[in-house]
């Protein structure tokens, strides 16, 4: 090892790594002295320092920063409060969404009844609302999507446990639909039912998508 070559000296690597903080003035006096002394004899480290100086200058003289936007803590916290209240009202929004979809579904169901879609297979009876008519009570269509790879045994168990009727396999959409009867249920109850179904480990999603009205 050529000890006369500063680049081969024991402190060379250490000094190289300390250059940025030598430049920003945050080294201890001991470290700064070490760097200063080494720089005097090491052209390689002086070259490195020159690049660091350019970077520091570029960063500190960067005039590209536009005028800082007017902002206030109050505005920010108010925005946060709004966001949180929107979060809390998510369930409320969801209720409206359920309600809207139920109203829409009701219209569809009425149309379905009045236009008579014709005979359907037993396992799809709810689709025409005629089976609901026979039962003379309101039913809700719950659409379920299962997690990938679930066994048919587990899937059937969940479908059974949810207590739905007229289970239908929507193969194209990889979903199941079933008619759920929740007498005199409020939107809160519907939402709780869907949430409980969705909280099962086998279930990816559960949502009410339509309403069945009894035929008058």
């Amino acid at each position, binding site marked *: 090892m050529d000890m006369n070559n500063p680049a081969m000296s024991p402190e060379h690597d250490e000094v190289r790594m300390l250059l940025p903080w030598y430049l920003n003035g*945050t080294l201890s006096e001991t470290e700064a002295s070490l760097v200063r002394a080494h720089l005097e004899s090491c052209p*390689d480290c002086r070259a490195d320092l020159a690049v660091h100086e350019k*970077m520091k200058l570029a960063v500190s003289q960067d005039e*590209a920063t536009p005028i800082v936007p007017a902002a206030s803590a109050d505005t920010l916290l108010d925005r946060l409060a709004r966001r949180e209240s929107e979060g809390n009202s998510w369930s409320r929004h969801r209720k409206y969404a359920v309600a809207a979809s139920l109203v829409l579904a009701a219209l569809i169901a009425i149309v379905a009844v009045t236009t008579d879609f014709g005979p359907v297979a037993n396992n799809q009876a709810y689709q025409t609302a005629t089976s609901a008519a026979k039962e003379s009570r309101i039913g809700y269509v719950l659409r379920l999507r299962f997690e990938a790879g679930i066994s048919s045994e587990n899937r059937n168990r969940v479908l059974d446990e949810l207590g739905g009727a007229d289970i239908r396999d929507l193969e194209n959409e990889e979903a199941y639909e079933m008619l759920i009867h929740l007498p005199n249920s409020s939107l809160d109850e519907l939402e709780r039912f869907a949430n409980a179904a969705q909280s099962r480990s086998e279930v990816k999603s559960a949502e009410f998508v339509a309403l069945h009205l009894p035929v008058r």
Partner: protein
Amino acid sequence: MTTPKMSDAIRPSNEQEEALLRRIAAQHRPSFEKLFGSYHPRIFKFVFRLTRSYSAADELANDVLLTVWQNAEQFRAESKVSTWIFGIAYRQSLRYLGKRKPDALPLFDQDALAHDENSDFERQNWVQHGIQQLPPKQKLTVMLVYYLGLSCEETAVATDSPVSTVKTRMFHARRKMKDYLAKSAVPTSATEADGHE
């Protein structure tokens, strides 16, 4: 050798900021307003230099300060308040930069620039552009060290990295910058022009 910092004289001391943060942890809005006034411009400028996007910087600066408001009780006084806050800015900026594709190179005509290689202004532009091309962690570390003037240990805390990693990032940033400037025909020093390294 000291780094000039903006409005040091009017900035609260670290002890005062710790007291502010304790009150913010108790959701004391006036304390947050005070901290906000002191930090918002600095954070905005810091993230703008990283993102070069006014709207992204505005959103990031607000997100950083909201995180401070929501997590003030997690501050353990193991570092300065400013290091803790800029650590949050570092992580949020890193997430933003990680999602963004690197800028296309070059932003302007390299040949035209080569004719003005002795212009300080043009040279600085190249260096600034070169900094924008650094990998996100290196770019952020350069900003923490040269824009905010953090010490090596503070940089390590802010980036949640070992001191050795921080040193290595700056080392690689310097090396990449040197290569970049060499390609752009900007002399980095008389020594290098003589063929050293």
